[in-house]
């Protein structure tokens, strides 16, 4: 492997070719050539595997270990067929990362977007292959552009040599190099000779933002046609030889234990291949999912109730309330605005239920599924099956939604165990009931606020909270132990409210919690989805206490001009303060995280408070450079529906240790009739480094919906969802 610096005057390689590791301690960005007969180059990714804390800028690696493979790397290949192929160490779950990366590559190569292909990379042994924390564009923006710019320089140099022309006279466009006399050569035709080039004759630096033609242009998803024609393949759509449909009978209660199973009737049914016990229940492998479900239902199983069988919502809520730490004394002479809020459990409920194909043999295993954490998944699958990690191959598939659910790999471990036990490849699918009743959820939480104001200004702001934490018990099952994103990810700091968003004087507070054996998981925007939503409601209540307008008050209290600017934009575009009929109202909220900020203005018709309709949503976001404004708008649109659903109508009840809801029939996720009739998103112009955006909108949308509901109904909503 050779390394060249991504600059106009490349120096020698940082290390010789070979298989040993070389520490490269240069603070400049490196691009490596991989030995190949086509132009194949790789850019290291920052090796930060921890969840992004938000606003870290994309950074070049300083000390990079070169391993000779595409580990740790973003790899770009120019094929003879004139396709640019970049194997992406991230998962596509609808957030549009494949399109955003394709745009970065097309921009710097001057390739047609249609010629750029972004397959998802298999699990690697190291490096940052984590999809989460709204970190993908942030972490890929630098490496992807530098990689493509280097490839372009090599291709131009190869063409210059072929044509005996000065490289600086050549142009690139439409996946070709173009000579002044009109001759053209496709990148594919130049790939082999470009692979041998070490010293480029033109700059390999990415373009300045002022020359961007693709980045920043609203662009349709690269997989749009595949999706609308039904060609897009999800895990369950794959035909892996011999992998038979598999489902698991699960207990009625969370964590219920199998006492006995009589599987004679099930085994006697046609099309049943195997019945085996697994930690989560009893698995059935059959000829089709119809046969598998029928056999599952024919199992006669005795279950022992799970550890929470005596627990229902009322007790969980009172225990949470009791676990909220006390707030200290307020400043003397101040007026208090106090509020307590409760949030119910919420299912991730991706449309594609958890599905995994596993083929576990004596000495190796191969798994196919959609994973945000394939590296961790591979290690856990190896350990669960007793194989070395090097013997486990994890293929990452596109996911039908995630919202954080695919950070965990419960189903993949379960599929591997079933395959191992039955000595055959299996295609495991959790039913919607499994997903709702045994899947993970956003933890329920309780929040206590006290804002103290004096002289028209907030002088102290206290927020103490408690949320449910997942206890793994004495004997956690393999699937229960599947990766849980550690800790709460908040805007900053140990206090629940420590984002620095508002100038609220002295901040105080603490977090408590109760441990329950309930499967939990990071849910889009994680802690901010409740913490910041509740804060934004309190901000409205402070404004009311001070006799100020919610937008005007925020303008005086916000610290950041950038946040004030998005608030002003949303307020102006949404015609804040316009007269509305009785039972209708507007609400606003803002949020800042991941190096980005957003404001949301929602209008609601709550003339029937039991069936409110959010009629209009206007959002304004500043995310630095918006690589694909069309994709960003889509993400914001999605978070508006998250806000409507979680604030007004969708949650999970716990009844005597079991989840009451079982499908979208009773988990009341918003339908078309609940979605805004009018949605618009305004993207603030910026040439700054991109920030994260996938989760950004959730707290602002949730807060705006709650504030609109409060103003429309004259109530102070305290429990969410409101209609539950």
């Amino acid at each position, binding site marked *: 492997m050779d390394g060249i610096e991504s600059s106009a005057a490349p120096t020698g390689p940082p290390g010789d070719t070979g298989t040993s590791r070389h520490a490269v301690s240069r603070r400049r960005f490196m691009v490596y050539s991989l030995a190949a007969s086509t132009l194949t180059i790789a850019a290291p990714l920052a090796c930060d595997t921890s969840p992004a804390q938000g606003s870290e800028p994309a950074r070049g690696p300083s000390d990079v270990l070169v391993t000779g493979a595409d580990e740790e790397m973003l790899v770009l290949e120019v094929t003879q067929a004139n396709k640019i192929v970049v194997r992406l160490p991230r998962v596509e779950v609808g957030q549009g990362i494949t399109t955003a990366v394709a745009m970065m590559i097309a921009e710097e190569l001057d390739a047609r977007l249609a010629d750029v292909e972004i397959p998802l990379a298999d699990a690697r042994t190291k490096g940052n292959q984590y999809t989460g924390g709204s970190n993908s564009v942030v972490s890929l923006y630098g490496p992807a552009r530098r990689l493509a710019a280097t490839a372009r320089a090599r291709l131009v140099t190869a063409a210059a040599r072929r044509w005996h022309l000065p490289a600086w006279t050549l142009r690139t466009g439409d996946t070709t190099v173009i000579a002044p006399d009109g001759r053209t050569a496709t990148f594919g035709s130049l790939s082999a000779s470009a692979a041998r080039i070490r010293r480029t004759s033109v700059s390999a630096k990415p373009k300045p933002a002022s020359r961007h033609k693709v980045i920043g242009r609203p662009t349709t998803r690269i997989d749009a046609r595949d999706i*609308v024609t039904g060609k897009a393949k999800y895990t369950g759509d794959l035909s892996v030889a011999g992998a038979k449909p598999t489902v698991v009978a699960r207990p009625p209660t969370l964590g219920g234990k199998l006492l006995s199973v009589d599987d004679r009737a099930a085994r006697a049914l046609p099309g049943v291949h195997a019945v085996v016990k697994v930690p989560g229940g009893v698995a059935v492998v059959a000829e089709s999912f119809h046969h598998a479900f029928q056999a599952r239902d024919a199992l006669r199983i005795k279950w022992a109730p799970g550890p929470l069988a005596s627990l229902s919502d009322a007790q969980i809520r009172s225990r949470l309330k009791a676990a909220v730490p006390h707030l200290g004394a307020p400043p003397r002479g101040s007026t208090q605005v106090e509020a307590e809020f409760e949030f119910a459990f919420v299912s991730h409920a991706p*449309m594609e239920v958890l599905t995994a194909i596993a083929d576990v043999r004596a000495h190796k295993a191969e798994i196919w599924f959609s994973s945000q954490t394939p590296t961790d998944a591979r290690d856990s699958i190896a350990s669960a099956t007793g194989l070395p990690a090097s013997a486990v191959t994890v293929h990452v598939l596109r996911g039908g939604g995630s919202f954080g659910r695919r950070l965990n790999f419960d189903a993949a471990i379960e599929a591997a165990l079933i395959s191992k036990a039955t000595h055959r490849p299996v295609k495991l699918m959790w*039913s*919607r009931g499994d997903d709702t009743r045994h899947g993970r959820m956003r933890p329920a939480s309780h929040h206590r606020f006290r804002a103290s104001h004096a002289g028209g200004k907030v002088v102290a702001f206290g927020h103490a909270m408690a949320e449910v934490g997942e206890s793994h018990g004495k004997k956690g099952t393999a699937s229960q132990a599947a990766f849980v994103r550690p800790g709460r990810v908040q805007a900053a700091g140990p206090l629940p409210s420590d984002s620095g968003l508002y100038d609220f004087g002295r901040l105080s507070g603490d977090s408590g919690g109760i441990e329950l054996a309930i499967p939990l998981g990071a849910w889009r925007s994680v802690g901010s989805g409740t913490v910041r939503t509740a804060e934004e409601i309190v901000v409205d209540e402070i404004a009311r206490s001070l006799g100020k307008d919610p937008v005007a008050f925020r303008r005086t209290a916000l610290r950041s001009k950038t946040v004030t600017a998005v608030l002003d934009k949303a307020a102006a575009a949404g015609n804040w303060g316009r007269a509305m009929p009785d039972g209708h109202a507007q609400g606003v909220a803002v949020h800042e995280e991941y190096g980005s900020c957003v404001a949301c203005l929602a209008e609601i018709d709550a003339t029937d408070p039991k069936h409110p309709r959010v009629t209009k949503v206007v959002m304004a976001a500043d995310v630095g450079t918006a690589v694909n404004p069309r994709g960003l708008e889509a993400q914001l649109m999605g978070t508006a529906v998250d806000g409507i659903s979680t604030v007004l109508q969708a949650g999970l009840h716990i009844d005597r240790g079991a989840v009451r809801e079982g499908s979208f029939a009773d988990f009341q996720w918003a*339908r078309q009739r609940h979605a805004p009739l009018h949605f618009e998103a305004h993207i603030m112009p910026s040439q700054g480094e991109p920030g994260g955006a996938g989760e950004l909108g959730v707290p602002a949308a949730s807060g705006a919906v709650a504030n609109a509901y409060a103003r429309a109904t004259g109530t102070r909503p305290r429990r969410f969802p409101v209609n539950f």
Partner: protein
Amino acid sequence: MPSYSFTLNGEKVTVEAPADMPLLWVLRDLLHVTGPKYGCGVGVCRACTSHLDGEEIQPCVVKVKDCVDREVTTIEGLADGDTLHPVQQAWIDCDVSQCGFCQPGQIMAAAALLKKTPEPTDADIDGIENVCRCGTYSRIREAIRKAAAGRGGA
């Protein structure tokens, strides 16, 4: 096992299956037509929405025996060769899809709606029950309007 014949996306197919086998699993597991998705199995999420004799159905709750000699159309059969159905084209033009999993069902539901109601009102569009967990509803509405306008309301 009994066998059942029906027309699938313009071609006659015959499958051996239990009479009560839902069409969804006949399509997906026996015929490997995977456009219709499983999302709930009880006709609620509507990710599997397809057409039976031109009318919207949820194949997860339609038995194969009830499809005999009838015309089943899935998302794979909606386009006319390489020419997309106006609803599919509108879906691309409006960049509706995010994860895409529910969209074959959303498109089939929209196509069925427009066939019956060429100029749908907001209330008509609100009547579509298909769940989109990504929350693409606003673009779905825009795409349906665009497809309706493109047909000149015909």
